[in-house]
């Protein structure tokens, strides 16, 4: 469809407005993170004095003293483990749901959806009690388990859609070629469902990385506290100063892994990977 110059102008203006609306808070945070403590409240959009002091302070004192390094490690570890386990489990489940006829298939799918709908806040109280009893409170596992519970339905749904797109004949061909069902899955289905796997991985990672509710409720120390929760415990230099600068700097830093993760995996989400498998 050809666009007239007028349409193009309108589109450009519209897009610019959306971009500005979405990016101003980000730029604002970056700007804050670069200000010195003295100028932090000057309301200037562009810092009058640039300083990396806020970033330095986050890492001051190494792993034992810094309020940020250990939470960052926790966040990365917990989010990556959650993502890996979630994708492996979800791909098995989704493959079965997409391919096999078994009683209760729809119940499983509906159940998964119901869990995803469940308000996390209502599980926090019971989890807190259970984790204390089981000794999972304030551990990585204590966060990974609820993250898995809430991310699996999402991952399963995404993957079922992708698996259903793969022609069944490919799997039959693999079986006749001498593959065991597991080999057919790993050597033929998984490579073809890779875009779906990466999509699901991005969604799960972002969910686990951004979570605040479970992180603040089920942790009590740097042993497992993740960055979003740790930010809430940042203190200023004295009890009368706000830790605005360091929170801004931390917020900028925690955004970086997400951007890297998405960019990295986005390259793998190549549409039309299955083209040529069968006559369309």
């Amino acid at each position, binding site marked *: 469809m050809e666009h007239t110059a007028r349409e193009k102008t309108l589109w450009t203006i519209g897009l610019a407005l959306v971009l500005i609306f979405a990016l101003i808070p980000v730029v604002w945070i970056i700007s804050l993170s670069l200000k010195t403590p003295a100028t932090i409240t000057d309301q200037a959009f562009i810092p009058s004095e640039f300083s990396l002091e806020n970033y330095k302070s986050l890492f001051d004192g190494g792993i034992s003293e810094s309020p940020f390094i250990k939470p960052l490690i926790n966040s990365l570890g917990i989010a990556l483990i959650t993502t890996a386990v979630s994708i492996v489990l979800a791909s098995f489940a989704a493959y079965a749901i997409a391919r096999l006829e078994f009683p209760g298939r729809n119940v499983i799918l509906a159940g998964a959806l119901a869990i995803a709908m469940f308000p996390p806040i209502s599980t926090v109280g019971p989890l807190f009690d259970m984790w204390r009893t089981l000794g999972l409170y304030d551990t990585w596992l204590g966060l990974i388990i609820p993250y898995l519970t809430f991310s699996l339905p999402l991952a399963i749904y995404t993957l079922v859609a992708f698996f259903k797109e793969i*022609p069944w*004949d*490919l799997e*039959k*061909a*693999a*079986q*006749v*070629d*001498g*593959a*065991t069902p597991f*080999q057919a899955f790993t*050597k*033929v289905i998984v*490579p*073809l469902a890779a875009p779906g796997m990466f999509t699901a991985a991005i969604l799960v990672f972002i969910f686990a990385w951004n979570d605040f509710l479970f992180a603040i409720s089920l942790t009590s120390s740097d042993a497992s506290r993740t960055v979003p929760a740790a930010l809430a415990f940042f203190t200023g230099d004295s009890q009368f100063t706000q830790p605005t600068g360091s929170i801004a700097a931390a917020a900028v830093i925690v955004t970086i892994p997400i951007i890297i993760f998405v960019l990295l995996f986005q390259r793998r989400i190549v549409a039309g*990977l*299955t*083209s*040529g*498998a*069968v*006559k369309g």
Partner: protein
Amino acid sequence: MADIVLDHVTKKYGDGYEAVKSMDLEIKDGEFMILVGPSGCGKSTALNMIAGLEDISDGELKIDGEVVNNRAPKDRDIAMVFQNYALYPHMTVRENMGFALKLAKVDQKEIDAKVEEAAKTLDLTEHLDRKPANLSGGQRQRVAMGRAIVRDPKAFLMDEPLSNLDAKLRVQMRTEVAELQSRLGTTTVYVTHDQTEAMTLGDRVAVMRSGVLQQVDTPANLYNDPVNLFVAGFIGSPSMNFVHGKVHGDEVELPFATLPLTDELKGAVSDGQEVICGLRPEHFEDAELVGDHLGEGVTFEAKIDLVESMGSELYAYFDAGSQEVEKVEQAASEAGLEELAGGDTNQVVTRLSPESKAKRGETLKLWVDPDRLLLFDPANGERLRS
């Protein structure tokens, strides 16, 4: 290489539907066997059961003398070519063809050699490092064949492998498949709904209908000597004409002519019996063009409704004028021939020489060969013979 024996093989689904009913079929070592029938007749299901992709509900399947009912596809040593080729899109042609050997942990050097050899046979050498997406339909089809032949399996199973190709390529590939099979001498089971493929490719053809095997024979025998109305109507294009007839002594009275019965037919029918008469289009001729054979046949006059000239031959249609159309239609539909009998069972197709002067709307003197007449029982569609 091996023989394949189906002994009362049955496929019954959970809802009680029987896709294949007690099928008995013996495929000899090196034989090219065609399974043919209208869609939904169970031919693909039968093939999938041989492949091991579907469970066998009842009966026994033997490959090379061994019962393989409970063996996984990978343990049956068979190769399959799918209708949609089912190539692995993330692998190159080379990897596609070598996949089975790689799974079998064959030495990489040997895989390369076998793939190269198969590629040479199939004219794919220059495409070995391309992905399926970059190949044409015919090339993809050849890769699918190549994937089967590199393995040197006990049998090839082909599920309508040519049906996705355009008409010209299909004819070309048909010849190639036939050549390949006769050179390799591998037992082949080939499923198709295309009767041209069935007639030209197979050593023997098995005709199926609604899960029941109707007749297994050479293409020529199926054509000339069908066991029932279904096989008679299914094999041949345009299909056989069916008209209602009544036996009077040594003759059978058709709506448009009275034909003498051959000695063989005389013993099969009794006076006054109602029958369905089957006559192939080529058993008619323009009476003026028959020449010396005129006396051997019966002539009659018919008003031509439609003439189709194909260049090498001419199809003339006339109305049988039968008063008993319903009986023929009923027998045809019971035999599962609704789609073949077409809407107008009353119309007779004749194939005449191109020199014929047949014209639409004019009356033409036609000649028919009574020796080729086939009779069927209207009650069950079975062929009547002594």
